[in-house]
């Protein structure tokens, strides 16, 4: 419950404050957000499986974000940034979908 509250508060604060995104972070923020979403879906699924552990969640969350940003950064340095970021988004999207399917099966039994 507190976790859900945290998410809601974060969205509200972000909408209210409207900070300027630093230019250095601009290319990585969307990928990082998608990676974090993937981690969150994985966490929800693990919770429904009864195997949730906050330590694992924190580590996976942070590592997802860092790795995603790193891949995009590396792609930018290699000159294939847009293709790599597309690939990362596709992979993360597939994972989010599969996690969402597992969550759906747990919650709706369908």
């Amino acid at each position: 419950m507190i976790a859900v509250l945290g998410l809601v508060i974060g969205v509200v604060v972000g909408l209210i404050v409207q900070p300027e995104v630093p230019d250095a972070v601009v290319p990585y923020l969307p990928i990082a957000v998608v990676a974090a979403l993937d981690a969150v879906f994985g966490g929800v699924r693990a919770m429904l499986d009864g195997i949730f552990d906050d330590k694992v969640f924190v580590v996976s969350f942070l590592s997802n974000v860092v790795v995603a940003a790193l891949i995009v950064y590396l792609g930018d340095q290699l000159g294939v940034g847009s293709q790599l970021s597309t690939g990362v988004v596709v992979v993360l999207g597939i994972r989010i979908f599969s996690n969402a399917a597992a969550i759906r099966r747990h919650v709706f039994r369908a």
Partner: protein
Amino acid sequence: MAAEEQPEPQPEPQAQPEPTPEPEPTPGPGPAEAESTPRHRLRVALWPPRLSRGQVVVATLLLVLGFALAVQVRSTNDHSQLRGARQEDLVRILDELDSRQQRLQQEKTQLEQSLAQLENSSNQAKEAQEQTRKKATELGVLAGTVRATGPGIVLTIDDPQRQVKADMLLDTLQELRAAGAEAIQINDVRVVAGTYFTDADAGVQVDGRKVSAPFKFTVVGNPQDLTPALNIPGGVVRSLEKQQARATITQEQKVVVDALAAPTVPQYAKPAAK
């Protein structure tokens, strides 16, 4: 405990959860079994809010995620798409804009050219129309369908003896024309190319209309040419005086020939090709 990460790269666990929920509904009624259903776990996790360390840490991470999400959505919607675009994308967009600008510039040049052409032709058409109107007016003066004004003379012939015949008026007219008269009116009859004089019982007819003394010639032309032409020895004035008629000439800076002749359409004559 690493299962949170493990199911994701491997597709097999997706298939596994399916069988697990299915057996649960059957023994479902037992409270011990209900403890382990995912729905129950969800409810337990959601409702009585517990302030455990894990919850707080997860909430902090989710807060950061929500914040980043909102900021990203905001910046994507607020700013143009150029913000956050990659360098090569920007270069491509710039190239596209450049070529588009070139195309538009070409189009603009073409349109301006056609505009200039149209203006030119419109000016020419206006010019031609103006010239045509001018020509029509000039021809109207000749044909007697337009009133004429300008310097000229007024020749009045008093004929108390009624001796003035058509031939004398014709002589007068010829003399005026020879002297350069441009528009002539006798009393209220406009003299045009087809004007004719006839003697009738009651007097003289011009173009079939009776004119009676005093005959008043209103003539537009150069007065310095017209007056001597009439006054030459043996000329019109002398001839008229022989017939007991008295001719008086007044030169004026502005005379008005305001009688109009009905335009006639030639019935047989047609313009011949050159």
